[in-house]
């Protein structure tokens, strides 16, 4: 056989031949393309839920921030301190300071029922009581509408995510907590983190309403630098007056997100793999019928001296083109339908709602296209081998 140029031109002409015959096989070709598009759309769509959730959790903690809980508590909900404990924590070495003192905010965390906008049924919405330092501890905090609550007053501010998901959380409205009615005076953002799912009020107000005395559940702190963490942690855990657990905020939120992300990712990959199996069958069927419809043509080419290699490659190329087309359609659908979709789900660790947006990232799109490519290759391989092995004489006799 002649050189690689000749071989390439053989491949090109056989492939062209196959691609040009696609309109005649519309139904079966579009079924295969739709099948692959479905796989990619589902894979990307489901994984974008996990990516979005994880992103919200990751955005919640900064590397130079730490959270202090009662030892043995794995969430704020079951943690607890008295005022003297929080003072000891605020005096620990390694904490960043402002002109008003150390950057440590002792906070309370409770849950109230508010109806979800989408379903109208009650959901557990986190209500956080914070001290003044809370705003400095979280440096991404920003009021986007209205103003902050006044210390000591029965007022609340609402995270931008919560405002979107739960009914009546608008500036000027009131929320009912037991027998009290608290006006919403502002809406804030917090760099996309979980704080955006929360309602905030003054810690002393919340203590009074919940008959908590002078107690808190967690202390959020800002450190001088990320490397000051060890010093801060050692100082607290070795202090005989305290019985606490100190975590980097990034670790704390990563721990909270693993269960949900793992569940969604496993589910997504499982479902997509099953579908991929189905789509491979679809692609195989399509390419087998493509080959059998062209038995005579392929045999003629072979008789004219085309190599079996070029036939194999061209059938695979055709299958790959169809798969990539399907993959692109699927990825496009997933992007249009899911990217940025706002929703809220239950975070079982904090027993309350977290609002987040689905994220169709470029990595996910690439992953989808990779799946499509694999399906296309498997779907093309066996029919291609059959085409290459056609006994030329017998196939020509079918004329």
């Amino acid at each position, binding site marked *: 056989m002649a050189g690689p140029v000749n071989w390439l031109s053989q491949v090109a002409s056989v492939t062209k031949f196959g691609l040009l015959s696609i309109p005649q096989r519309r*139904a*079966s070709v579009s*079924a*295969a393309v*739709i*099948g692959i*598009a*479905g796989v990619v*759309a*589902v894979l990307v*769509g*489901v994984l974008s*839920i996990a990516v979005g959730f994880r992103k919200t959790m990751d955005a919640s903690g900064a590397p130079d921030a730490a959270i202090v809980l009662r030892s*043995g*508590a*794995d969430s704020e*909900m*079951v943690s607890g301190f008295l005022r003297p404990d929080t003072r000891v924590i605020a005096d620990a070495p390694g904490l960043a300071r402002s002109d008003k003192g150390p950057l440590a905010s002792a906070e309370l965390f*409770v*849950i*109230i*029922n508010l109806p*979800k906008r*989408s*379903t109208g*049924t*009650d*959901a*557990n919405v986190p209500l956080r009581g914070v001290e003044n330092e809370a705003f400095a501890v979280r440096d991404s905090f920003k009021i986007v509408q209205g103003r902050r609550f006044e210390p000591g007053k029965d007022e609340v501010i609402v995270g931008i995510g919560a405002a979107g998901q739960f009914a009546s959380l608008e500036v000027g409205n009131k929320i009912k*907590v*037991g*027998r009290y009615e608290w006006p919403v005076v502002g809406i804030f953002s917090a760099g996309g983190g979980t704080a955006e799912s929360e309602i905030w009020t003054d810690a002393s107000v919340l203590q009074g309403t919940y008959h908590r005395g002078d107690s808190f559940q967690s202390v959020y702190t800002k450190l001088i630098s990320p490397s000051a963490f060890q010093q801060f942690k050692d100082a607290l855990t070795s202090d005989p007056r305290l019985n606490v657990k100190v975590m980097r905020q990034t670790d704390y939120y990563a721990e909270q997100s693993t*269960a949900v992300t793992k*569940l*969604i990712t*496993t*589910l997504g990959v499982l*479902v997509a793999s*099953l*579908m991929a*199996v*189905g*789509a491979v*069958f*679809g692609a*195989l*069927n399509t390419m*087998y*019928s493509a080959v059998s419809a062209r038995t005579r043509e392929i045999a003629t080419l072979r008789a004219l001296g085309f190599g079996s290699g070029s036939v194999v490659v061209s059938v695979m190329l055709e299958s790959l083109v169809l798969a990539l087309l399907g993959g692109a359609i699927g990825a496009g659908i997933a992007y249009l339908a899911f990217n940025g979709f706002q*929703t*809220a*789900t*239950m975070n*079982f660790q904090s*027993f309350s*709602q977290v609002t987040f947006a689905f994220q169709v990232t470029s990595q996910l799109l690439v992953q989808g296209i990779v799946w499509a490519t694999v399906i296309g290759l498997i779907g093309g391989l066996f029919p291609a081998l059959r085409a290459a092995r056609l006994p030329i004489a017998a196939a020509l006799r079918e004329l």
Partner: protein
Amino acid sequence: MKFVHLIWSNLKRKKLRTGLTLLSVLVAFVLFGLLASIKQALSGGVSLEGANRLVVRQKVSIINLLPESYKARMERIPGVDLAVYQTWFGGIYQDAKNFFMQNPVVPEEFLNMHPEFILPPEQKQAWLATRTGAIVGRKTAERFHWKIGQKVPIQSSIWAQTDGSRTWEFDIVGIYSGRDKNTDTTPLFFRYDYFEEARAGGKGQVGWYTIRVKDPSQAAAVAKLVDQEFENSPYETKSEPEGAFVQGWAKQVGNIALITASILGAVFFTILLVAGNTMSQTVRERTGELGVLKAIGFTNGQVLTLVLAESCLVAVLGGAMGLALAWLITSGGDPTGGMLPQFFFPHRDLWVGLGLSLVLGLATGIFPAVAAMRLRVADALRRI
């Protein structure tokens, strides 16, 4: 029946394609089975028993407690038959990942309220006689290989004992099973009197109440009466039928579940489309043969039946195998290890699936079948 052989030969004509079609139908129905199980797990399959039961919780949030003294006040409200309380214990056995619910209850009235938990009478007696006794559902007992008589230490993330310890020890005195398939047999129940005496804080307070109403048709009215009774008290209540309460939980997980379900639905139909297309292609290719059959005297009806029977056979066979496979996969139970105790494939959906596979067979077969029936012998033979 004499045509069975003919149908069979037609299927064998292109073994590979029949096989692939069968497999894609199979995959579609495996997905259907998983979808049904996930839906079941998330909606929590409320048993009929729930129709006469109300759940009463603190109005602000279920994490806020209610006084134990509300029991007597509730039972005085007309239409209320029985009120029992439970409290979230939040315990961890060995590792936080080993999640299951543990609640303190008053044994006799609790079992009276929940006939869906079946406990052998001698184990019930043992529970009544042992203050630190606990009963556990079959699923959890099997999961941790617990035997009757065993002592089980559980660490509570919420409740400390008066001596400051958070480790509570229980004697397993009974293992209950579920009356219905959707009865959740993962929780552990222990005695409230033991709990009340030993706990350091929150004395006299309980998590939530379950009320049995005398007449299920009056459930909504009774719920209203209960909430009115406690209106303007420091502990206002929210009462709702047990079914609505469970559904509320499912809705908290939110449209994630809905989205997953709708994605799976879309997938199911995509695969059906792919499979259906291949099936009709098979018939189109045989136009000539069908012409021959008609030429040798097959009636229109016979040709129609022949084609339909073939597509239905593939669909139902693939469907049944897929459903059986899904059944096998889901029979392993909850894949998340505790988060979805209600994960199983409901019988009803098994029949729905079989019905769907028949519909698939008819839908994919009907167009080629009608075309075959209308075929004029001369046209068909000319195409050979």
